[in-house]
C-alpha cells in the first residue's frame, strides 16, 4: 500500500513513506514549510512553532507530526501566514537583532523568513535584553544577542558531534543558551569549526571568524532567491 500513501498539502497530492513527518514529506515533494528549529539531520524538536500547519482542522507542528493517509493540510493559508508573522515578531522582540550590522544578513533564515511573510515593521515593544558576546574562541564567535533558542547547535553538538558543548539555563523568558565548560567560555569548550553544531545555526549567533563578508551583501543566499523558493541551508 506504500505507493498509495498520500497527504494533501494546500490541495496538492504529496506521497509519503511510513515514519515520515509532514515536514519530511513536504520537503521531499519540494514544498516549503517555514521553520527555524528543524533540521533534517536532527531529531524533530517543535519549539519555534513556525511550521504550524492545519491538519484535518487541528493546528499542529509539521516537523513533529507524522504524515498519515489522507490528511488534509493547509500550509499557505492567510491566517497561518499571519500567525507565522506574529511568531517572527516575537523572536525579533525577544533578542537583539540588528540586521544591517550582522554579518549573517542575507544568509539568515530569521531575516529571510521575515521577508517571506512580509514582516515589514516591528510590532511589539522590544525587550532589549542585556546579552553578551563570547569571542574567546580563536575560530568561533558566539553572539548571544542573536540566539533564538532553537537548540539546533545544542542538539547537533550532543547528538551528532557527541561533544555536548551547549545547554540551556533557567526557564521562561529567562531561558538562555550556555556553554558547558568550567569557565562558561567557548574557548574552554571542545567546539571546533568542523562540528555539525557550527553548520546549523539559522541566525548569526554562531559564526566562524576570519570568513566574514567574503560573500558581499547582494550576492548572498537569500539575496538571490527568497527562502521559500531556494534551497534552504539545510537543503
Amino acid at each position, binding site marked *: 500500500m506504500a505507493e498509495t500513501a498520500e497527504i494533501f498539502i494546500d490541495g496538492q497530492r504529496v506521497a509519503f513513506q511510513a515514519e515520515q513527518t509532514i515536514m519530511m514529506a513536504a520537503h521531499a515533494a519540494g514544498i516549503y514549510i517555514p521553520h527555524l528549529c528543524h533540521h533534517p539531520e536532527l531529531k*524533530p524538536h*517543535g*519549539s*519555534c*512553532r*513556525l511550521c*504550524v500547519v492545519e491538519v484535518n482542522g487541528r*493546528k499542529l*507542528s509539521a516537523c*513533529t507530526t*507524522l504524515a498519515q493517509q489522507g490528511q488534509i493540510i493547509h500550509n499557505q493559508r492567510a491566517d497561518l501566514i499571519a*500567525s507565522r508573522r*506574529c*511568531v517572527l515578531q*516575537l*523572536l525579533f*522582540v*525577544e533578542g537583539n537583532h540588528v540586521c544591517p550590522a550582522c554579518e549573517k544578513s542575507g544568509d539568515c533564515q530569521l531575516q529571510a523568513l521575515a521577508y517571506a511573510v512580509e514582516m515589514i515593521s516591528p*510590532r*511589539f*515593544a522590544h*525587550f532589549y535584553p542585556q546579552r553578551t558576546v563570547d569571542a574567546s574562541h580563536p575560530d568561533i564567535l558566539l553572539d548571544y544577542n542573536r540566539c*533564538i*533558542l532553537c537548540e539546533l547547535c545544542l542538539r547537533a553538538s550532543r547528538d551528532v558531534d557527541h561533544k*555536548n558543548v551547549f*545547554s*540551556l*539555563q*533557567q*526557564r*521562561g*523568558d*529567562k*531561558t538562555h543558551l*550556555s*556553554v*558547558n*565548560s*568550567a569557565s*562558561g567560555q567557548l574557548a574552554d569548550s571542545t567546539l571546533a569549526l568542523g562540528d555539525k553544531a557550527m553548520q546549523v545555526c539559522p541566525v548569526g549567533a554562531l559564526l566562524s571568524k576570519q570568513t566574514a563578508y567574503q560573500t558581499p551583501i547582494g550576492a548572498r543566499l537569500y539575496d538571490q532567491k527568497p527562502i521559500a523558493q531556494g534551497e534552504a541551508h539545510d537543503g
Partner: protein
Amino acid sequence: MHAIQARFNYLPAFALAALADALQCSVAEIHSVSSFYHLFNHSPRAYDIRFSHNIIEIYQGKAALMQQLLDGLQLKQGQVRPDLRVCVDNTSCIGMSDQGISALVNGLPVTHLTPARITQMIELIEQSIPISQWPATFFQIDHRIQHKNRLLNSQIKAGDVLTKLSDKAQMWQTLQQAGIRGCGGAGFPVYQKWRLCQATPAKQRIIVCNADEGEPATFKDRVLLSDYPEWVIEGMTIAAQLIEANQGFIYLRGEYRYLLPMLEAVLAQRRRLGLLGPAAGFDIQIYLGAGAYVCGAETALLNSLEGQRGIPRAVPPYPVNHGYLGWPTVVNNVETLAQVTLAFLIGGQHFAQIGTAASKGTKLFSVSGDCQAGIYELPFGTTVAELLALANATEVQAVQNAGAAGQLLLSPDFHRRFCFDDVASTGSFMVFNRQRDLSAMVANFAQFFAAESCGFCTPCRVGTRLMAKTVEKIQAGQGHARDVDDLTDLCHLLRHHSHCGLGSSAGNHIRDTLTQRPDLYPLKA
C-alpha cells in the same frame, strides 16, 4: 538537589560540582536542570521566604504584609541581605488559598500571616532562631472540609479494598462501569488510559500519581494526601495490578514538601503489611518537585521525574505507550486515584449512579476568595449557583473556575452545571465579590504565566511576557486600541500555536475578560 538544599538552604557551587562529578557531566548541565526550578536557590541565605502570590492572597492584603516584612528586615524584594541572613520574594500559589496569607519559609508553609505574626517573624530571624524552633502555630494548616459527599464521608484502612479485589476481568469491568474521568483537567477516561497502557507490550510499566497541584487556588489534593492518603495509594496499587506495573511514583509538588514525612510513614506501614515492596511486586517512591507549574502537565512531569528540565514532550507518543524512561506509564491525578479506590469499594455500577451522563460521581472543589473557603465535595451536575450558595458567597461579581488557566464565569453563567460537557473543573474555584477590582486578577494571572512558562516554544516564552507587559501598560493608563488588538492576536497565537496545554490556556483569562469585561481595559482617548 533537595538534599543539598535541605542542608544548606541553597545549592552551593562545590556541592553542584560534586554532583556533576558523580553523574559524570558538567556543572553547567546540572545547573541547566536546577535553574529551571524556582524553589532551588543558587546563592546563600539563612532564611528563604516566598510569599504565595496568587490573587486570593493579593486581595487579602498580601502586599502590605510583605512590605512590613521587607521594611522590618531592611530588605528589597528578591535581594539577599548583605549579611546573607534572609531573602524575601514571591512565588506562585503554594496551595494554601484556604489558609489566609501564607509563605514558604525554607520550603515549609507558614500560614495565617498577620501583622503581629510578621513582627514575630522579624524577631525570630534577627535572633537567628532556626525554623525548627519557631512556634508550631505558625505552621498550622486547618483543613476546612465544608461539605462532604460519599468520598470524604468514607473511611478505609490500608488494604481494605485491595484485599477484597475480584479477578482482573471483573476489575476491568468495575473500572469501565464507574466511568471515571481524569480529575487533573483533561478529563481522559481512566478505563481507556489504563487499557491503552496495559495493551502496550513492555517488560515493565509505571503508575505515577500526579501530586503537582499547581493550578492557582487548588488545594484539594493537599487535603486528600493529608487526610485520605490510603485512598490515593490504594488507587495506585489497584492501577499497578491492572496495568501490571511494578513501580509507582508520587510526584509531589515541592511546595508540599511538609507532607513528605507523613507520606513516607504511610508507605512504610504498607510495606510492613506486605501491600507494597518485593512481596507485593510493586513499590512506590515519592519524588519531590521544586517549583514549576508546568510539571503538572504529564509529559513535563515525566521529564522532571527523569531528572531533567520540566519541558513538555511532543505527543504522540503518549505516556501510555512511551512514558517514564520509555516505559508505558499511566499518570493520574491524586483525586482520580482516590475515586478509583471508591469505585472498587462500592462497585462500578453503584459509583456511576450519581453525576451526569458523561461525568460520573462526585468532584472535590477547592473554594477560596470572598466566601466560606474550603473543600466541597459535590456530585457532578451541581450548578455554579448551588456551590456559591453552599459557600455563603454573596454579592458575587465573578468566579474564576479551574484556576488561572480556566474560565471566568459571570452571573449569567451561574445556572450552568459542573461536568465535562459544560463547566469543566480542575477543582479550583475562586470567588470575587463586587468590591474587587478584577484588573488585579488579570495582572496577576498574566504575571503567573510569564513566570511559569517553561520557555520551550516561542509563542509561550515571548507571548506570555509580552501579554504581562501589555496588561501593565494598559493598567498604567497608557493603553491604545492597538494594545488590545495585540492582546487579542497573542491570545489566538497562544491558543493555537503553542507546544503544550500550558501555552494554549495561558491567554484564557485575557480572552475571557476582553470579551466579557472590556471595561477592565480602559484606553487612552
